């Protein structure tokens, strides 16, 4: 099949697959690791008290599949952004800038969660929601801009981010097969 000019120009607005994979790997690493870190706490404090091994593995299966959906959501959002923004802003440097955006966004949420108690809803009291959103957007925007600027000004920092993203690819070989097994496990658990 020959790809026409129109399709080429559409696809050109997206980064190359070699650039997408490291950014996706950064997202997967952070999302999955966070869930496993939190779930390990649940395991020792609660689940291990009354659930059997099969059920606990089942719990992790649902969580990993949830993480997989999140990772797709994250990379799709970044791709959409790269499609909408001028090529020079994001698409051409997707590896470095996409990684910085993914890291700052996910880490901003982590900081918020670690600073609040584990109960999300009462902590985001309705009377505080506007303040909460403004604070979050401010922290994320400032940290992202600072890191993006640092990535451009200091070549070493830019290379460091890219090398981190590259190294995260190893986690794809670990987390994605586990996700596949989790999907199979969930299907089996729900057949009946």
């Amino acid at each position, binding site marked *: 099949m020959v790809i026409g000019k129109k399709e080429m120009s559409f696809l050109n607005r997206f980064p190359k697959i070699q650039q997408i994979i490291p950014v996706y790997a950064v997202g997967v690493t*952070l*999302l999955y690791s*966070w*869930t496993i870190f*939190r*779930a390990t706490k*649940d395991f020792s404090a*609660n*689940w*291990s*008290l*009354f*659930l059997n091994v099969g*059920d606990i593995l*089942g*719990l992790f*299966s*649902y*969580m990993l599949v*949830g*993480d997989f*959906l*999140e990772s797709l*959501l*994250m990379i799709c959002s970044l791709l959409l952004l790269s499609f909408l923004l001028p090529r020079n802003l994001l698409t051409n440097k997707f590896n470095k800038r996409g990684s910085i955006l993914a890291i700052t966004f*996910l880490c901003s*949420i*982590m900081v918020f*969660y670690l600073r609040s108690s*584990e*109960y*999300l*809803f*009462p902590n*985001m009291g*309705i009377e505080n*929601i506007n303040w909460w*959103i403004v604070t979050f957007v401010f922290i994320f925007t400032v940290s992202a801009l600072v890191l993006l600027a640092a990535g451009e000004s200091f070549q070493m920092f830019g290379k460091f981010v890219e090398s981190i993203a590259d190294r995260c690819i190893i986690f794809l070989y670990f987390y994605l097969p586990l996700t596949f097994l989790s999907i199979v496990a*969930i299907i089996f*658990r*729900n*057949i*009946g």
Partner: protein
Amino acid sequence: MGKITRRDFLRLVWGLSSTTILAKIFPGTSKLKSENQLPNFIILVCDAMTARNLSLYGYSRKTTPNLERLAERALVYHRHYSNGNYTTPGTSSLLTGLRPWTHRAINGSGIIKRQLSFHNIFHFLGKDYFRMAYTQNYWADYLLDQLSSDIDSLLPLASFDVIGQGAIDQAFRNDSVVARHSIERMIYFSNSLLLSFITSLYYQNQVKRIPANDHPFGLPSGNYFPHRYTLEGLFEGITNKVLEMETEAAPFFAYFHIFPPHWPYRPRQEFFDLFYQDGYRPVVKPEHRLSHDSSQAKLNAYRNQYDGYLANIDAEIGKLIATLEKQGVLDHTYFIITSDHGESFERGMSGHFTPLLYETLIRIPLIIIAPGNQSRKDCFTLTNSIDILPTILTIAGKEIPSSCEGSLLPRLGGSDDPKRSIITMDAKENPAFKPLKRATFALIRGNYKLIYYLGYGGMYQDYYEFYNLEEDPEELQDLKSMTNYQTVFSEMKQELLTAIEAANQQYS
């Protein structure tokens, strides 16, 4: 002539066999019996409703004028106890008729021991009844989910909500316990980064759109789940459901486990105003070392909110009963009002997620409106949640399984036994299927109460408290060292230790 079904046959047998007994207790039941009709049952469990804050049971704030009015023609149990101090063990004992150390639903969000999941009120009532259940409490919903094969209609948690999620909960019916535990942690407890973030923003934004001007603390809600509802909407939903079953599914057994008055306490303004500045001064008790360390000012503020919430709920219960009465439902329905555990505003402890087992945490209401009963009947004998299952089975003409650990309630076939012992426990940090080594137990016999703390370290590694509830209902004077109480203290201690040892035997 149509075919006689098993259900018709059992109705006939029940009509013949139990007519005499119940007619003696409640003369008005003759109407019910003449139609050979099995009675309906409605259990209304109000989560975290302590008997100590109800004016029905002598609380000086007028929190329950409607329950007092209803009590004029009801059975009122004054010394009724939950078998646990929070939802999971309290609800499980009520539904299974088993003590927590038997059913083993002792951990937060825990479930009933799988081999015993058949041992429940829905199963024992069987197909002769249309069995319906509903709860707003997530942890109680785990339990109902576990029993769902014995329930004909299990309503979703968010059935009567203004805003509520429910679609995800319903998506994994064949693996609901595991799926829902996972989804709960992912979305509501921030085990996921993005899903919880997006969901919380979405629901907070939704909630913001609902006017809640007459609710000074916001609309009633779950404690960490994105449900919002009004008490009016909730009770209207319950009323409609009962009327629907009355016309389409009688005889029915309905279990409604509502979240109020559980924290967050969110009464309407008019009810909060009732007690906000009424000058009430609760008895100040010394802070307990195992408490949450809440200040007295904070406890008093919470108490004010809670009492207002109780009055608000009481008004809605009053309306519910009036409607059911008007529609004739109560002519053939046992209406049972109770709770799964109490609530504390003393000793530095707010709420109920605690190892403490003082009266405020475990003494709960039990009021039964029985068909045909026109006068108030007070019962001061010790009773507990596990008595409800065998009592209902008896009224429904069913056999009581020998494995049941409760007794028939006095005035409903049971006898007043002054020597009876009640045992309540908390072991939320103890593995469910291992011997009990970190737990609190309370044994109540007559007017005496023994509390035993086990495995909490320090002075509470192996520690007893002993109270005379008649002379010291506030449990302020520990009598275990008093010489004139040594005999009864030793006897009760021995009884409790023997019972714990027996419970531990199969896990050691």
